[in-house]
C-alpha cells in the first residue's frame, strides 16, 4: 500500500477495447499478463479489477473476438493463453473509432472558449 501512484477505475465500456488492444501488442497472453500489461502501459493508472477481468474474457470468448488455448508459462504452470481473432480485430477497430469520436467530442466541449 505504499509507493503507489494514483489509480483510477477503468471507464465503463472501455475494458473490452483495452483488452483487445493489449492483445495486439505481442503474442498470446494469459489473464494475469493482460491485467499486468494494462497496468504497466498506463503507467500504473489503470488497474483492472480482477472481478471484471475474467467475466470480460469469457464474454469475448462467447462473441468470438478472442480465442483461448491452454499452454505452459515460463515456470511450467498451466495457463490459458488468449489471442485475437479476425472478428476481434474488426471489433477493435470499431471500438477505437467510436472512442475517438466520443473523446474528440468531449474535448471540444472542454476546450477553453
Amino acid at each position, binding site marked *: 500500500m505504499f509507493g503507489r501512484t494514483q489509480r483510477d477505475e477503468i471507464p465503463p465500456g472501455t475494458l473490452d477495447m483495452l483488452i483487445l488492444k493489449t492483445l495486439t501488442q505481442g503474442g498470446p497472453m494469459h489473464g494475469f499478463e493482460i491485467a499486468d500489461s494494462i497496468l504497466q502501459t498506463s503507467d500504473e493508472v489503470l488497474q483492472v479489477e*480482477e*472481478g471484471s477481468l*475474467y*467475466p470480460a474474457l*469469457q464474454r469475448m470468448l462467447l462473441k*468470438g473476438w478472442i480465442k483461448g488455448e491452454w499452454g505452459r508459462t515460463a515456470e511450467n*504452470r498451466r495457463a490459458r493463453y488468449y489471442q485475437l481473432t479476425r472478428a476481434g480485430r474488426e471489433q477493435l477497430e470499431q471500438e477505437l473509432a467510436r472512442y475517438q469520436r466520443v473523446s474528440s467530442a468531449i474535448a471540444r466541449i472542454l476546450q477553453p472558449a
Partner: protein
Amino acid sequence: MSPGEIWRRLAFLLGRSGKAAEMDEEIRLHVELREQRLRDEQGLAPEEAALAARRQFGSGMRVRENSRNVWGWGWLDDLLQDLRYAGRLIRANPVFSAVVVLTLALGIGPNTAIFSVMNTLVLRGLPVPEPDRLVFLRTSRQPDSTNNTGNYGSSFSYSVYEQLRGQGEAFSDLMAFVPLALNTAPVRYGDTPEEASASMVSGNFFSGLGVQPVCGRLLSLDDEQRRAPVVVLSHGYWTRRFGQDCGILGETLHVKGIPFTITGVAARGFIGVESARATDLWIPLQDRQDLNAWGLRREKTYIHSPEWWCLMMIGRLAPGVSEEAALGKLQPAYVNAAYAHLGQPKPGEEVPHLAFAATRGIPGLRDAYEQPLQLLLAMVGLVLVIACGNVALLLIARNTARQREFGVRLAVGGGRMRMLRQLLTESAVLVGAGTGLGWLFAMVATNALRAWSGLELSLAPDDRVLLFTLAVSVLTALIFGLAPLRGAVRVPLGIALKTSGATAHQDRQRTWGRKAVIGLEVALCLLLLVSAGLLVRTLHNLEQIPLGIRTEGLLVFGVSPQHLQSHAETVRFYESLSSRLRELPGIESVTLMENRIGSGWSSNTNVFVDGKNPQEDRRSMVRWNSVGPDYFRTLGTPLLYGRDIRDSDAREAPKVAVVNETFAKQYLAGTNPLDHNIALSGRANAPQFRIVGVAVDSKYTGVREEAAPMAYFSYKQMEHISAMHVELQTAGDPESFLPVVQRVVREFSPDLPLEQARTQQQEFSANLSQGRLIARLAFFLACSRWCWSRPAFTGRWPTW
C-alpha cells in the same frame, strides 16, 4: 445472436463441468501469480502475501458465477443445484415431506375429481367441431290432441321434423333421433344375444354433428330415404364387443331380430347425444312396426302418427345466426307444422313455443347435478384452502428452524435472490409431488364414482381438467411457497448466527398470523363437517321413505320378444313365460309391468271418469301402468278395497282397472270407488275400464315421487302390448335366482337376454345414487380434513 455465438453457447452447455474446472484453474493461477508478485515487489511474508492476494482478487465464487453466467446457462445450473438440494432436504426429512405431499394430494385430488365430474356433466361440449353451435330443440307444450313418449318438452312428431328440416335459414342441419327401446334393445351377433343401447337417427345425423368415421362410413341421407338396413357402431361398443377389428365391416348384426349390415364405426369419444347412457349403435330412421320409436307397439309407426310426439331433435345453427334469430325464424313454421295434420287448435288452447337447450354437459343430468356439484366444488375448494393453510404452517415452522442455515448462506455471499429461488424450488418440488399424487387420486376416484353412480360414461379428467389442476397447483405453490419466505429472508444476520438466541426472536406479527390461520381452518373444517352432516341426514331421510312396496326378494328384468305377430301370440308368450317361472322352486309370485317401477319411466295421460273430466276447472291426469296378474300381491302393496288384477282379466273379459288411494280421493271422493268406469280418452267409443280395486299409495317413478293419482290395467286388455318387465317375488336372495331364470327365458327364445336384471331394491336405490354420491363424498372429505388437521391445530407436529 450470430450463428457462431449460438453454436458456442451450445458447446458450452454440453461441456459445462469441464469449463468450470478450467475457470477454477485460471483463477488459481491468477491468485498465485498475484501472490508471487506481492512477495517479490513488496517483500511480504508468504502467508501475508497469500492473504493479500486473495483479498485483492475478491470473491472467487462471484467471479466464477459471473463468468459462467456470461454463457447464459447459469439458470440451468442453479436450477439443477436447487433440485439436488431440495432432493437432499426431502430425503433428510422423509416424514415431514410425506406429510406435506399427502396433505396437498388430499387437497388437490378431490378438487380435480369433482371438477372432472362437473366437467363431464355440466361443462363439456360434444366432441365435435364447434359444439356451441349445436342446440337441442325444446317445446313449451304439445298440442292438446297429441300424446308423448320420452321427456315431455323434448319430443316432437315426425311430421314436425319433416317440415322443419327444410328450413335452411335457421339451421344448417336439423337432425332427429329416437331410441329403439325404453332402455336397451336386444341385439345379436353370431349366437349370443345381448343388449345394447340403440337409436334411430336421421341421415344427416353424423354429417350435421361433424362426427368422423374410424372405419368404413357413417350414415347418409340416402340411407334414410331407402330405410337402408345398415348400422353404425360406437367406438366404445366396437372396442368392447369386437376388439377394434375393422374386419367386422360388412358383417351382419341382428337388431331386434332384424339383420343389419355394419357399415362403419364412429370416432372415439363420440357417445351420441342422449342423456346419461352412451349409445352403442345407430340405424337410419325406419318405418316398420317392429322397429318403432321407443320399441313401443302402436297402430301405426311414428312416421305416420302426427299425434305421437316421440322424436327428439338437435340442430346446428347456420353460420352467423344467433339463437334468438333462429327461434324467430322457426317459430311460425313450427306452429304450422305442429298442427299440420291435427286440425285447428281448440279455442283457448295455448300455442306451443319452440326453445333451445344447450348441448353442454349431459342433458337431463345437467340440471339435476349442476347445483349439487357447485356446492361440492365449493366444499372441496375449502378443503384445498385448509390444506394450503396446514402446509403453510408446517413450512413456516420449518423455515424458522432453518434460520441459521439462511444466515450462514447469506454471510458467505450467497445472493438473497438465489436463496429465494432455491426455497421456491423446494416448494415447487413438494407441490409437484403433491399434484402428481392428487392426480392419481383423482383418476381412481372418478373411476369409483363412475361405478358407484351407474353412469356409463368416463368421468376421467380431460384437458380442461388438467389445466384446472395445474392452475390450482401453481396457485397453491405460490401461496404457501411465498408465505414462509418472507420470514426466512428478512433474517438479521447477527442474530441468526447465534444459536438459541434466534428462537427468542419471534415477531408478534408472525405469531398472530399463525393463530389467525389456525382459527380460520378450524372454522372451515366445522363448516365442512356441518354441511356434510346435513347432506347425509337428508339422504338418510330419503332412504327411509316408505315405498308402499315390499322390496325384499323382488327381482326384475326386461324381456323384448321378437317376431310376435299378433296380440294373442304376445299374450300367450307372456302367459307361458309367467307360468313357467312360477313353477320354479323358490319363486313365490310372478307379475308383469310395462313401465318398470323405480326406473323413472311412466305413462301419463288424461283420465275420464264415467265419460267426463272429474275436475271442472282443469285437466285430470293419471299415471298409469299396464301390468300382469297378481301385480299387487307380488309387490306387497295392500289393497284397500276390491281385488288385484287377475289372470282372467283377458281380452274378451270385461275391462278392469285398479286405482290408488290418491286417485280415489281426488277423482272419486264421496262415492264408492268400485262403481265407476275410467277411460284414457274422451272419445265416445273409447274403451271403458271398470274399477275393481283400490290400492294403497306406492312409489311408481322413484323414491322422491310425490303422491299422484295412479291406475293399473291388465296388459291383456290393452290395445298394444310392448316389451314388458317381469317382476319375481323370490324366497331368499333374489340375485341367486338369476342363472335359473336366465335358463328358462332362453328356452323360450335363444335371442332373448335378460334386460337390466337387478333387484327391485337396486332399482330404487339407483334413484338415490345422485344424492348418495354427493353426500358420501362430502362426508369423507370433511372427516379426512378434520382428522388430518387436528395435529396441526394442537400444534403437536413434531419439530424437525
